[in-house]
């Protein structure tokens, strides 16, 4: 099994197009990071460090309102604007900012047609969030939140490019005849699945790592314990920026697993690399579509598609899943759904592989 696995990995790594795609995507990620340096945003944001440890309260809000150099306070202006839903922050105070934030959240839950029990779930979560929020310089993590959806699309594209040939290429090359006349057909299937999954995990670690290196390299690591609300005010979970970073990392890896499982499933079932790749790319574009909440279940299901899911918006998704009398939020359910979906894809591919017959060339 080990030998077969090694050779399957070699087959995947020998694809020139994969290396070209990885190189291009690395350049894009570096480009995204450098943009902040070139535009001066990185330099400006360093000024926020002096506010680390300060609460966003009346005293700070007053300071923002009276400041002559408004650039110095952009991060707080953005926070107030986001909470108030308006650019007019001249006459607001702490109480109004936090009350409006909560009202906005309540309105959004009503718009999403949440039941009273669901609203109660969120209100309990909101009660655990300490207010006023304490600011900490967290631009390194913020850079990741704003770019992670790009890296997610890259991961999906790399799966399409690198994995869609894993079964189909054997058919196209005619090597399936050698494989299917051998004794290790089942072992080979497992070796191929493991190779596909491990390569995808390596790619996910690489992309998330590259994104992290770029962002932390420019802005530093500080802000791990900052509340997520200073970056995503609408979030009602008691969660820190650092925890969110780790959660996104795990989610990114699981997204890699489902992309890889789906690519292998398509490769086996369609037996055609181009068709499998095309479906993956179409899936990428479809996941960019935002299905409004008015579409009910479709919108809910759509929001769980990994292509559409990974991004800062994930932390303000209020719709819940009700299982065995308990509510679960999307952060809890998405990894479970994706793992189940991955197993289903692999099981169907396995079934198809078992019954596969060589056809004439």
């Amino acid at each position, binding site marked *: 099994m080990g030998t077969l696995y090694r050779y399957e990995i070699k087959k995947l790594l020998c694809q020139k197009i994969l290396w070209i795609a990885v190189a291009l995507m690395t350049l894009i990620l570096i480009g995204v990071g450098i943009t902040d340096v070139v535009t001066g945003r990185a330099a400006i944001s360093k000024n926020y460090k002096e506010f680390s440890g300060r609460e966003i309260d009346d005293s700070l809000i007053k300071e923002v309102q009276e400041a002559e150099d408004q650039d110095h306070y952009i991060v707080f202006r953005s926070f107030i604007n986001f909470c108030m839903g308006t650019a007019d922050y001249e006459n607001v105070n702490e109480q109004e900012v936090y009350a409006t934030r909560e009202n906005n959240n309540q309105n959004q839950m009503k718009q999403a047609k949440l039941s009273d029990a669901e609203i109660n779930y969120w209100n309990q979560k909101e009660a655990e969030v300490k207010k006023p929020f304490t600011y900490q310089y967290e631009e390194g993590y913020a850079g990741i939140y704003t770019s992670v959806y790009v890296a997610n699309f890259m991961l999906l594209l790399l799966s399409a490019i690198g994995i869609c040939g894993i079964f189909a290429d054997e058919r*196209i090359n005619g*090597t399936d005849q050698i494989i299917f006349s051998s*004794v290790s057909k089942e072992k080979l299937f497992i070796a191929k699945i493991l190779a596909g999954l491990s390569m995808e995990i390596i790619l996910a670690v690489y992309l998330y790592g590259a994104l992290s290196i770029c962002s932390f390299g420019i802005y530093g690591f500080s802000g791990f314990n900052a509340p997520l609300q200073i970056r995503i005010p609408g979030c009602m979970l008691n969660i820190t920026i650092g925890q969110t970073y780790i959660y996104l990392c795990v989610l990114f890896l699981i997204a890699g697993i489902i992309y890889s499982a789906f690519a292998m499933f398509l490769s086996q079932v369609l037996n055609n690399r181009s068709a499998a790749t095309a479906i993956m790319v179409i899936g990428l574009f479809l996941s960019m579509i935002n299905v409004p909440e008015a579409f009910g279940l479709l919108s809910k299901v759509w929001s769980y598609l990994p292509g559409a899911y990974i991004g800062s918006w994930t932390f303000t998704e209020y719709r819940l899943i009700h299982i065995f009398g308990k509510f679960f939020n999307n952060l809890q359910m998405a990894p479970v759904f994706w793992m189940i979906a991955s197993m289903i894809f692999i099981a169907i591919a396995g079934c198809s592989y078992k019954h596969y*017959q060589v056809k004439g060339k």
Partner: protein
Amino acid sequence: MELKIENLTKQYGNKMAIQNVSCTLKPGVVGLLGANGAGKSTLMRMICGVMKPTSGTVRLGKYDVTDMSYRNLLGYLPQDFGYYPDFTGMEFLLYVAALKGLDKKTAKERSENLLEQVNLEKDAKRKVKTYSGGMKRRLGIAQTLLNDPKLIVLDEPTAGLDPKERVRFRHIFEQLGKDNIVLLSTHIVSDIEKCADRILVIKDGQKVFDGTEQETGKDLESFYLDIFGGEE
């Protein structure tokens, strides 16, 4: 050990690719002759278990074609198959050896011996993409023999080989046929007339002749032309 084929049939929609072919093969070289599209490859694929027949059975000794023990005794060289271009010749053989379930030590020993046998020992570390067509074919024949098979199925094994190599391989097939069943398909009469102990002729999916060269009553070339005329 005998290979027993009984009423083997393969149907695609309304088209009968193979119709009720039955025969029993014993150790020796059996030439499977037929024009292009006659059904030779389909028949061989069913014998090798990579294609399910519509009806009929294939057994090697006590093993059915679906048994894993059958596969342990089988060596198959398909007509058209690609190689992994970035593998070296040695890596390709080690990979196929792993597919055939050989342990590492045996795989290495067998691969080295076979590379020598097919005259590729000096090119063992070169990538397959740098091999000529003939070298690839020789590598293909080497992979067929990795598990020391009792049933060797070779679909157009000499395609792409130069005359010198064809002669070399005819000798190899003759040697293999002493203890094993070697089923060798071709549409080139000269490939089998010197080495086949028995000849099977397939036309439009049906067995139209099964016997020795002497039993054809004439030279094989004329016999072939009588059956197929100008078909190619």
